[in-house]
């Protein structure tokens, strides 16, 4: 739920010496993303995507670095990052399984597939397996209703999922 915010004001922020938004990434964004927009703040979404792609998730320190880089307040970047479902403010598994739960997928039997995955991985939606390999998520419509039920594994879309081929899909992931 996009509008649920976390009370992180009183928590200490974990930091590390090495920046998440390093010089190489900064140079790349400066050259390819920033010139696209009339102001720097507009590059917030692409920069969050880029950092998350590199780091795997968005630590608070990274949000602060992005804010400094784009000339925004850290709270503004936080505001944006917390709104969107795809940004991870806590570590996730190596593979995130987003199983669509919207109407076409539910009509075509996504519930049985979800039960199968839950049993196989022994986790509930929103949780990560102990070995850090899989994170399971319910997600709203993935825009592939004609090939329901469908799900994303990281960036790859799997269509026409069945209780049989879900084994194959999960077993093929290293």
């Amino acid at each position, binding site marked *: 739920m996009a*509008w649920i915010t976390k009370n992180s004001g009183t928590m200490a922020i974990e930091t590390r010496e090495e920046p998440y938004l390093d010089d190489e990434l900064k140079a790349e964004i400066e050259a390819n993303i920033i010139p696209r*927009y009339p102001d720097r703040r507009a*590059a917030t979404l692409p920069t969050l995507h880029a950092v998350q792609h590199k780091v795997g998730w968005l630590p608070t320190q990274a949000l602060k670095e992005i804010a400094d880089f784009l000339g925004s307040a850290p709270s503004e970047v936080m505001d944006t990052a917390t709104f969107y479902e795809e940004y991870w403010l806590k570590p996730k598994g190596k593979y995130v399984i987003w199983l669509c739960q919207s*109407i076409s997928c539910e009509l075509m039997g996504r519930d049985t597939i979800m039960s199968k995955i839950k049993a196989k991985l022994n986790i509930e939606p929103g949780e990560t397996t102990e070995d850090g390999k899989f994170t399971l998520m319910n997600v709203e419509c993935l825009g592939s209703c*004609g090939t329901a039920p469908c799900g994303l594994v990281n960036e790859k*879309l799997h269509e026409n999922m069945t209780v049989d081929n879900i084994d194959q899909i999960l077993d093929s992931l290293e």
Partner: protein
Amino acid sequence: MALQEPVLTKRIPTPPFGDFSQRKLNSYEDFVATGGYVALKKAIDMQPSEIIDIMKASELRGRGGAGFPAGVKWSFLPPQDGKPRYLAVNSDESEPGTFKDRMLLDFDPHILLEGIAICMRACQLDTTYIYIRGEYHHQAKVLNAAIDEAYANNIFGPNSIMGKINDREPRCFVHRGAGAYICGEETALLNSLEGKRGWPRIKPPFPAVAGAFGRPTIINNVETLAMCGPIIDKGVDWFKSMGVARPQGAPAHVPASYGPKLIGVSGHVNRPGVYEENLGITVREMIEKYCGGMRNGKKFKSAVPGGIAMGVLGTDQIDAPLDFDIGKKFGCLGLGTAGVIVMDEDTDMVAVARNIVRFFSHESCGQCTPCREGSNWVYKTLCRIEEGNGTTADLDLLLEVSGSQGAMPGTTICGLADGTNWAIKTILNKFWDDFESRVSVSTVAGYSLPVLA
């Protein structure tokens, strides 16, 4: 009359003109070899105002859900003042049941880029941002590669065949969203483009006056822009020969539904998919002619005409023609995106309502209280009914909330709350028995609420 030859699916094999398995990505060369960018060259030879006049005369209505005439939208722009003007392409296709733009982006991205170039020339817009939803990873890559091809072939860029637009070089970029349905609302899209949370803005000012970065901005759906090329190329009369004309003698403000439309059919049919047909085709024809009939030979129960915010059609409304007048005639919100979801006789309409409201409750941006809180309470109420703990008072309450302007509908900045309530209202009204059989009669003494999670 059925579609005589494919228009938007010209390069995307689709039954009955081709087979799904033959679909492949069309490169710049493929696109040009099959008559691509001819319309853009014609548009370059015209005055910008001429292009807008053609679009107005074609009465092309927006394909993104609202059905606003595209040419009229284009004419709302203020005169140029030397500063930038933008085009934002809405490719945040997130409404359950809607998957038509994905097909265009997957297989024929240049048909969109040609439409974008025509719109930029007509409206004198110098920069385009294609706002694509975050989950479309593959489509964003395809689109980026297509844009690179377009730059290399001088569609955009410093040496663009369009020359300078608004005294600047025409540019086109992809802007990826990050998983928020509300960013498909045009002003939320603009906020998201500016790097903010996707909260819809109060209108006016309308985006045509003060949109992205406070500058005049046109926002169009992918399919709407993709249709511009064929209209410029083949003309208004050709376009108006398809679809549903205005009734004889009706005044100009009565909507007509000209042209072909991508119709995505999903749910309980044998061959779901995106098909192209003239507006006005009935749900029955779509199911029988294109989708190979109902799955497992079951009977039809209900269908969503175009994305779940539009509500549902009743069992006896299978012959409803899919055109922009469907809302008024068949008691739903409208045609929407023509993403038809078909449900068979075994479907539990209470579960359908619960699923639909869960979607809206999850995707409410949280800005307006009636929507944020209301959709969540409606969801909990529907869960209670589904679990067998509902009472008749719940049903009355749902009807009251969804049916009264000023409760949830009509009290919010954008249309998400209205969509939620249209869905509840139409399902309740058309499938009352399904609900009534699930609830117990409420008495004052016996009326108790189970503890809600």
